[in-house]
């Protein structure tokens, strides 16, 4: 087991190195730190002097090593637009995105579990058929369209829910939270439902097929023969064994949801990391862009590694084979 963990962590470090190399190459090729610092109105001679002073004329490897060293210490450069360390800008926006993802994750759990179990137990009922047809349709609807339709129905036509921004937020020790005010929660409803909508069909199908498979196994047949109650068989014996694959997929999909936050945040003007990223693109703020790449890359690598290790703990066969 120890060897497996060491191997996975080495792999993760290697991937992080590749990501940092890509990030540095982008910064080096299309970014201009001198412009980031002094703007456009400086003579070429002064620029050149500054370049020398900053070490921008050093060889690529030397510059990369410096970049990597700073990155490890948590310094990803200054944002050109915000005139602040890029990491601080990202940290200030992160709570919004994390709360959005939490909201969506909760919705996914509370909707997909009961529906998934129900459709597995009664595959022939009309509710199940309807759900399955609906989930095929659901995969084909882009998240921004769901978001727009929700806005049109609940904000424009019915004016029940607000359509943009985070509403009232309260600072809890540096964490701007919208989860503790009624206004903040109201603002969270539409964005998190839209974000959840892309993952819902997938999870309902996954839970359904896993549960159906478990219901066919010998030990469930034995449990029926033993005369256990239906509830006990479904929710205690069968349900527990459906959870394992669902949890691993959930871990990976939470990472994927971060990608879709860019779309959701754009529609709802949600002041999170994805919104910040698009603003950075519009302003050609390369440092911030690269910092975002590194942070998101790190999040993915950590999530994937942790999921793999947990999976390895639970399922010894992949430890030996090394790969899934």
């Amino acid at each position, binding site marked *: 087991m120890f060897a497996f963990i060491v191997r996975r962590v080495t792999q993760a470090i290697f*991937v992080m190195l*590749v990501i940092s190399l890509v990030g540095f190459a*982008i910064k080096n*090729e*299309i970014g201009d730190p001198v412009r980031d610092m002094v703007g456009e109105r400086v003579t070429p001679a002064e620029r050149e002097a500054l370049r020398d002073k900053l070490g921008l004329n050093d060889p690529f490897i030397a510059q990369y090593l410096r970049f990597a060293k700073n990155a490890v210490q948590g310094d990803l450069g200054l944002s050109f637009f915000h005139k602040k360390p890029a990491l601080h800008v990202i940290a200030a926006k992160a709570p919004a995105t994390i709360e959005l993802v939490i909201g969506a994750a909760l919705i996914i759990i509370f909707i997909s579990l009961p529906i998934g179990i129900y459709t597995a137990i009664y595959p022939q009922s009309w509710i199940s058929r309807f759900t399955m047809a609906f989930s*095929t*349709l659901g*995969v*084909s*609807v*882009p*998240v*921004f*369209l769901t978001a*727009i*339709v929700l*806005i*049109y129905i609940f904000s*424009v036509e019915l004016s029940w829910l607000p*359509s943009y921004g985070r509403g009232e937020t309260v600072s809890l020790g540096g964490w701007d939270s919208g989860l503790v005010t009624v206004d903040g929660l109201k603002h969270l409803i539409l964005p998190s439902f839209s974000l959840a909508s892309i993952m819902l069909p997938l999870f309902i*199908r*996954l839970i359904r*097929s896993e549960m159906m498979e478990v219901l066919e196994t010998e030990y469930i047949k034995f449990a029926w023969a033993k005369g256990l109650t239906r509830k006990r068989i479904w929710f205690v014996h069968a349900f527990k064994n459906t959870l394992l694959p669902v949890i691993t997929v959930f871990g990976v999909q939470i*990472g*994927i949801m*971060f*990608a*879709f936050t*860019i*779309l959701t945040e*754009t*529609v709802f003007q949600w002041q999170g990391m994805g919104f910040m*990223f*698009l603003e950075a*693109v*519009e302003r*050609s703020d*390369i440092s911030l*862009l690269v910092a975002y*790449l590194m942070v*998101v*890359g790190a999040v*993915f*690598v950590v999530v*994937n590694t942790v999921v793999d290790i947990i999976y390895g703990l639970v399922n010894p066969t992949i430890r030996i084979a090394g790969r899934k």
Partner: protein
Amino acid sequence: MNRAWRQFKASYLLFSFKQDKTAIFSFVVLVALLITGLLAPLISPYNPYDPANIDIMNSELPPSWTEAGQTEFILGTDIQGRDLLSTMIYGLRLSILIGCGAVLLQGLLGVVVGLLAGYLGGKIDAVLMRIADIQLSFPYLMVAIFISAIFQIAFGIGRYEELAVPLLIVIIGLAEWPVYARTVRASVMGEKNKEYVEAARVIGLNRWHIMFRHVLPNTMTSVLVISTIQVANAIMSEAALSFLGLGMPVTKPSLGSLIRSGFEYIFSGSWWITLFPGVFLVLLVLVINLLGDWLRDVLNPKLYKG
């Protein structure tokens, strides 16, 4: 030709197609959409790229069946006064073009990489598949958004918009090739130890010939199965990028950029600019997905039906 046709008529593929109402329906809708897209200049009532047809006085007209609507613009007009139906048909054409182009590119890249990795094995396999693994650990949409953001800054917005179609094909192609590489590698690994490959080796054919003429055709089934789903994915990616403003410009809108421009006006009640392109997009992606599901079930019955 005649024989091939007879073979096709007797095939299991056609037989199961005729049994499956969903497949027939999806196929008919898809063909109708493809024809509409390809023949856009003949079918659409106006040419939305021609400034002579655009009158700003006609902007934001609702569909013809509503009170304020005009009969010349069946589905109404967008904010620039273009006929929405024509703009949608041209947008559909762009979406199909970019979707198929991107899939061709990623297929080409992925098939070559997968074939080399699977057949040659060893160090080449390790390096190529490690690259694919790293990229696959990120969602393809994220990768596509990053590449397009970098391209947009590197090229400048003006130049990017000019080159939008080829650039989007490259972006989406680069973002999704590992899927092909993985699939092709897996089926090459399965094929390369079979007798016919051994026989080809024994009679002294060189390995490039064996790879491309003998092994490759036998991996085509799995390529075909993922291709349909990949076209749907590519169209979705293109729409997402365009919606974010990283894709087709408003002057030459794809379905995604039409939805983007319509969204800005939804609060003033102009729902049709968003809704109709949205329905078009969903319909296109849905029928491709349905056909893909059907194809997967028919060609690969062993595959897990989720």
